[in-house]
Structures are given as structure tokens and as C-alpha cells.
């Protein structure tokens, strides 16, 4: 007891070196634990990216690539599968649900994914949590877009805002689909997954944009009556038509473009539908709003390969009429066409039974229609995480050395104090201290410095975590969960404490030897 208070007073007498040692240990402990925390948090948030999806299906290729592109929206989206494959998969008895995913568009650097409404019902992350909406609501309108929390925050978007989507990945080289503005229908709550940085649109809208880009849709003659904004688009289109006419398959119609834009009728696919035009007219005519379209019906009808969708037009138009925004003519056409894409990038699949996973996976891998890959998200995530294991161990090694340097600093400071303290040791010996007391004094000092260093380090860690939590979530979409120290952390701290005591054996043994050999001599 007396020795402990002596050790403490002796330490306080050397405040400066004590605090320097204390802080070097504290900082190294903070760093080590911080890295551990970051590592586990990164891994957890990584593993939480998707859940409840039993399989992800994409074109034949590396599973990590499919995972990266479909879940993290990283990498190319050039590998596609047929939409029909999706339809086939969906029909399989083992499949409870299947959600098609198409990518490749962006908005101001944020990924745009196209899917259908069932995405919101089935996509889940973390512990099977579905995406939730923080404002607005998921709208089944074709041009509704649900935006991730980060997108809304960074770009300051609100429900009802109109936005333009870019084809292709980048902000720079992409082509604006400015004829098809979307309106923000919902802002999703933060999920701290890639969805936060994503805009979600309908497959039909994405297909419409792409068709528009390639100028399969054109302006309608009657549209010149619309407001000036539409005028501009219209004018641009006239030019476009001329340009596109050159490589348009339907050269024979070229001459007619400027007069009546009859190029639509040229769609080869829809030629067979020509005969049905007359019937369709009747339905379209029913729309008050679209009276002016009457003359255009020929074109509309000609476009539409999905006759069955005609019946749905009534509903969708009525819904759309409720929106404050006027449709552009491209949108109007797209609504009538309701084209499904030919290709998509991935399918998220939920199975009726978890036991079916492996069988289903091998079925997909040997799919007849086209070469496919099916990955089990949890397994693929785990595999992908292995990529980071090298970086992880490198980080571990570095932080271990940081702690070691902290401890060596302590050792050198104790060793330096030793010569001066040989005198104190002789005095202590003279009043009856045993060599073991002297030894304990050194070990106790090292132990105390290290322990307070660790405690300070832990306090510092939580302070840093608390300070970083909000900015990390706000600016990096990384949710740092502040937890109690794990048993692994405690083990690390215990190891540090033991290492400190072990290292202190060196000066301890030295002073023990001195205290025996110096006798009652005070050496100077």
C-alpha cells in the first residue's frame, strides 16, 4: 500500500514525462480501438447491404462483379440479361418473388436504378428491413422517382421536384434525357446502404428514355399548341429527326418527317398492329385530356406492341392527370407505349423455401435461355469481404506497431529515469524497503501509466466516435453504431496492459539488480 502511494507520488513528481507517456499510450489505444471499431462497423454495414434476398441473378460472370453492380451499384452495367428471362424466372414455382433491376443511368453522379414497384415490397437490408419513405409516397406513376436520403439531402430535393436523368454513368459525358423529366414522389429514409445514393425509377420510364435517345419516339404534330417550354423541345426534335433520319432504318419515311412525323408508323415491329388501329382509336378518344391526340392515334397505335396495355391507359392517365406537372409529349407517348425493356441487369429473387436456394442456384447457372449466374448474397458478401482482409491485416499490423511504439516510449522514459532514481532506491532500501518493493515500484508505475493510458484512450475513442457519428452519417452515409467494447477489444486492452507490465520487467529487473549491488551506497 505504502509502495503504491510512493509510486503515485513519484509519478506525479515527473508530471511532464508522465503525461507525455500517458498520452502516447492513450492515443495509440484510441487508434487501435478506432481501427477495430471502424473495421467491424464497416463490415457490419457492408453485410447489412442486402438481406432477405435469396438469390441475385445476372449474366454469366464473376459473382463479385454481379454483387458489386447490383447491390453496391459499382462497376459496369453492360452485362445484361433478357427481360424474358426475368419473366421466366418469375413464373418458377420455387420463386416467391422476383424483382428486375436495370442500371446504367445516373443523375448528377448518383446511380439511377430502374425496377418495378415490387422492389419496395421485397428489397430489404440489415435485419430484413424494408425501405421506408420519409416524405411523399411511393407512386406507381411511370415517371415518379423515389430518391435516396443522401440524394435528397445533397441535392436539396423535395417531393414534387422535377429532375432530369442522364444516360450513362458520369455527370460529364452523359446525355441528358431532358425530354423526360421525372418528378420526385418519395424520399426514402436513410438505410445506410447504397440505396441512399440512388434514384429509383420504373423500368418503363428507363426504357422510354432510351428509346427517346435513339429517337424512336418523336414529336407529335398537334403539340405545337403547347407552351413555349414544350416548343423548344419540339424544335429540337425537329432537328433531331433530321439527324437521326440519316441512320434511321426507315429511310423510306424520311421525306415525310417534317410534315407529319409519320416515322412512328415505320416501326417494323408494330406493323402488324396497323390493322387494329381503328379499335384503339375508340379507347383513346375517350380521354378528355387527349382530345388533341386524336389525329395522332395512328402513330400511337403503331408504336404499341403491347395491345394488352391499352386497357390500362385509362387508369394511368387518370392518375397522371392528378399531378401538377404537365406531361411532355415524350412522356405522353411513353405512357401510351409502356414499353418494357428488352434487357435488364439483374434479378433479385426470393424463394418460397430457403432449402430451395442451392437447387435454384444450380438451375439458374444451367439456365437454357441464356448464360446466367446466380449468387447467394450473404455468401457473395462474405467472399467479397475477403478482398479487404489484406488491407485489414495491414491496418492491424500498423496499429499494433503504433501501440508498440507507445509502449517502447514508456520503456525508454522509465529507463531514463532509472539512473536518477537509483538514489531514491538506496534511500528506500535504507528505511527497510525490500528489493521486491523497489521492483514493484517500477512495475506498478508502468502498470499505472498504461492503465490510465488505456482508460484515457477509451474515453478518447468514445469522444471521437460521438463527434464523428453525425458527420459520418450525414456526409458519408456511413452509420457508425456506437457499441460497448467487444470482448475482442477488451482482450486487446488486456494484452496491451500485460505487454506494458512485461516490458516494465526490463527496468524492474535492472533496478532490482542495482538495489542488491549498490548496497547502502548512494551512487551519483
Amino acid at each position, binding site marked *: 500500500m505504502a509502495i503504491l502511494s510512493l509510486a503515485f507520488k513519484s509519478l506525479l513528481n515527473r508530471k511532464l514525462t508522465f503525461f507525455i507517456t500517458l498520452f502516447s499510450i492513450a492515443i495509440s489505444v484510441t487508434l487501435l480501438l478506432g481501427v477495430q471499431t471502424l473495421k467491424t462497423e464497416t463490415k457490419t454495414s457492408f453485410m447489412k447491404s442486402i438481406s432477405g434476398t435469396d438469390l441475385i441473378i445476372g449474366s454469366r460472370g464473376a459473382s463479385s462483379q454481379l454483387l458489386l453492380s447490383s447491390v453496391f451499384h459499382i462497376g459496369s452495367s453492360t452485362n445484361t440479361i433478357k427481360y424474358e428471362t426475368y419473366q421466366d424466372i418469375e413464373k418458377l414455382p420455387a420463386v416467391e418473388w422476383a424483382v428486375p433491376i436495370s442500371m446504367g443511368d445516373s443523375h448528377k453522379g448518383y446511380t439511377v436504378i430502374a425496377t418495378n414497384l415490387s422492389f419496395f415490397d421485397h428489397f430489404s437490408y440489415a435485419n430484413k428491413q424494408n425501405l421506408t419513405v420519409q416524405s411523399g409516397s411511393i407512386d406507381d406513376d411511370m415517371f415518379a422517382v423515389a430518391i435516396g436520403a443522401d440524394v435528397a439531402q445533397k441535392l436539396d430535393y423535395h417531393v414534387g421536384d422535377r429532375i432530369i436523368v442522364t444516360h450513362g454513368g458520369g455527370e460529364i459525358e452523359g446525355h441528358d434525357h431532358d425530354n423526360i423529366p421525372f418528378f420526385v414522389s418519395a424520399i426514402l429514409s436513410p438505410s445506410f446502404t447504397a440505396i441512399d445514393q440512388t434514384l429509383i425509377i420504373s423500368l418503363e420510364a428507363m426504357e422510354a428514355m432510351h428509346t427517346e435517345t435513339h429517337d424512336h419516339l418523336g414529336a407529335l404534330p398537334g403539340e405545337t399548341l403547347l407552351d413555349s417550354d414544350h416548343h423548344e423541345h419540339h424544335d429540337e426534335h425537329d432537328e433531331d429527326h433530321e439527324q437521326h433520319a440519316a441512320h434511321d432504318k426507315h429511310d423510306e419515311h424520311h421525306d415525310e418527317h417534317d410534315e407529319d412525323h409519320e416515322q412512328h408508323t415505320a416501326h417494323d415491329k408494330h406493323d402488324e398492329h396497323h390493322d387494329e388501329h381503328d379499335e384503339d382509336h375508340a379507347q383513346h378518344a375517350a380521354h378528355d385530356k387527349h382530345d388533341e391526340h386524336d389525329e395522332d392515334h395512328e402513330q400511337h397505335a403503331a408504336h404499341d406492341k403491347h395491345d394488352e396495355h391499352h386497357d390500362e391507359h385509362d387508369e394511368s392517365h387518370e392518375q397522371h392527370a392528378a399531378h401538377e406537372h404537365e406531361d411532355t409529349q415524350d412522356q405522353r407517348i411513353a405512357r401510351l407505349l409502356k414499353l418494357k425493356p428488352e434487357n435488364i441487369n439483374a434479378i433479385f429473387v426470393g424463394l418460397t423455401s430457403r432449402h430451395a436456394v442451392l437447387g435454384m442456384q444450380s438451375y439458374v447457372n444451367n439456365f437454357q435461355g441464356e448464360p446466367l449466374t446466380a449468387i447467394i448474397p450473404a455468401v457473395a458478401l462474405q467472399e467479397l469481404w475477403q478482398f479487404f482482409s489484406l488491407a485489414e491485416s495491414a491496418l492491424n499490423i500498423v496499429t499494433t506497431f503504433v501501440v508498440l511504439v507507445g509502449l517502447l516510449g514508456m520503456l525508454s522514459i522509465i529507463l531514463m529515469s532509472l539512473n536518477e532514481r537509483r538514489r531514491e532506491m538506496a534511500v528506500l532500501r535504507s528505511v*527497510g524497503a525490500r528489493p521486491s518493493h523497489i521492483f514493484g515500484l517500477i512495475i506498478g508505475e508502468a502498470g499505472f501509466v498504461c492503465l490510465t493510458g488505456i482508460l484515457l484512450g477509451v474515453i478518447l475513442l468514445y469522444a471521437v466516435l460521438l463527434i464523428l457519428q453525425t458527420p459520418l452519417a450525414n456526409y458519408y452515409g456511413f452509420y457508425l453504431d456506437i457499441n460497448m467494447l467487444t470482448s475482442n477489444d477488451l482482450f486487446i486492452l488486456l494484452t496491451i496492459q500485460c505487454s506494458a507490465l512485461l516490458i516494465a520487467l526490463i527496468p524492474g529487473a535492472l533496478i532490482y539488480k542495482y538495489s542488491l549491488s549498490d548496497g547502502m551506497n548512494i551512487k551519483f
Partner: protein
Amino acid sequence: MINLTDLSFAWNKQPIIDIKELTIKKGEHLFIEGPSGSGKSTLLSLLAGVITPQSGDISILEQPLNLLTASQKDTFRANHIGFIFQQFNLLPYLNVLDNITLPCSFSGIRKHKALSQSKNLESEAIRLLNALGLDDPELLQRSVNELSVGQQQRVAAARAMLGSPEIIIADEPTSALDSDNRESFIKVLFDECQKADITLIFVSHDTSLKTHFKHSLKLQEINQATIKEAV
């Protein structure tokens, strides 16, 4: 009460001490002189039981030291011997009071004896300091670094005397003092040892101090090792 017989000790096979017979009586004030390097400090270390002789016996207060384990020797020393060094007697991180009461941390007997003198350790420390000529009570809480060397030696003497050990061993306690301080220091040390019936073993190479002592011996005269070396 202190008996040495056939005592020999060597540092790294180099014989330093070789004493046939030495007896120091209770209450005796013994001055041991000897040139530098003659082994005075080594002899004191042997008496204190800090180092163990290669051969021969030391018995102190009828207790043969060679029958004690190392830690028993440490306890024995704490209980019965007070030390005063030439310099740096005090722990710099303790104040004057804590330095004086330091032996009580290691010896219950001395603490008990000190408390039988005064109502608490602090007043016993003040009593000893007053006796040694340091009568400023404010001194107790001072850092020892703020004391003059003379004051430090008196504080060291107070510590050596606290709890009335039977023996005080002083290893050149006055060599850092000027002659005036030296005289008064020796005087108060003598008086106090007299009062408490403490056996004082005082070592120095300064022969001028010998006059204050009734008993004195030259180490080189009784120490065969030094004679051999000299020859």
C-alpha cells in the same frame, strides 16, 4: 551488541573487507575513519544486511544476521537501524513530513515507538526537528528541494531517529556541509542519540571530526583486506 567475527567480503572477487573481530557496545558513539575506497560504505552495507558477507558472522542486538532471510533482514533493518547518507537522503517527491515518517511505512515497531513519544507522527516529527534546530513548523509541508543542504541533513537525521531505532548509521553525513554547520549538526546528533540511548556509528574520511567521539577506530587498522592491498 554489534559483533563481527572473521568477516570477509569481496566485490567481484576483489576482497574489500576482512575483519577478525569487532565489537560495538550499546550506546557507544563510534567514529570509523578511513581513506576513500577503503571499504567504509561496504562495511556499513554489511551491518545493515543489504549485502551478505562471503564468510564470517555479524550479529546485531544478539541477532545473527546470517540466520535471517533477505526479507527478514530488510524488516530487521527497518525496525532497528536508522540511516543518514552523505547527500540526497530525501525523496524529492515527498514533502518534509512524509520523508521523516517514511520508516513507519516499513516498520510497525518504529511507528509504534514514535506514537508512544507523541500523540501523532506529525508532532513527533516536529519534536525531532525542533531538537535538531529546525523550529519552523511551516517547514513540514515544504518540498525537500526547497531546503538547504544543511537543513536536508537535519531532516535526514530526524528520519533516522524517528521511532528510536537502536542503531543509527551515518555515512559521511557532514561532508556536504560547511564547517559551522558540520559542528552544530554533529552536536545535535550527539545530544539526541545520547538522550534516546542510540548506538551511533559514524563513518568519515575527515579525521578532524574524530575529536568529538569518545571511541574511534581506523578501518585500515582492523581490516586485513586493505592491509594486504596496501602491501
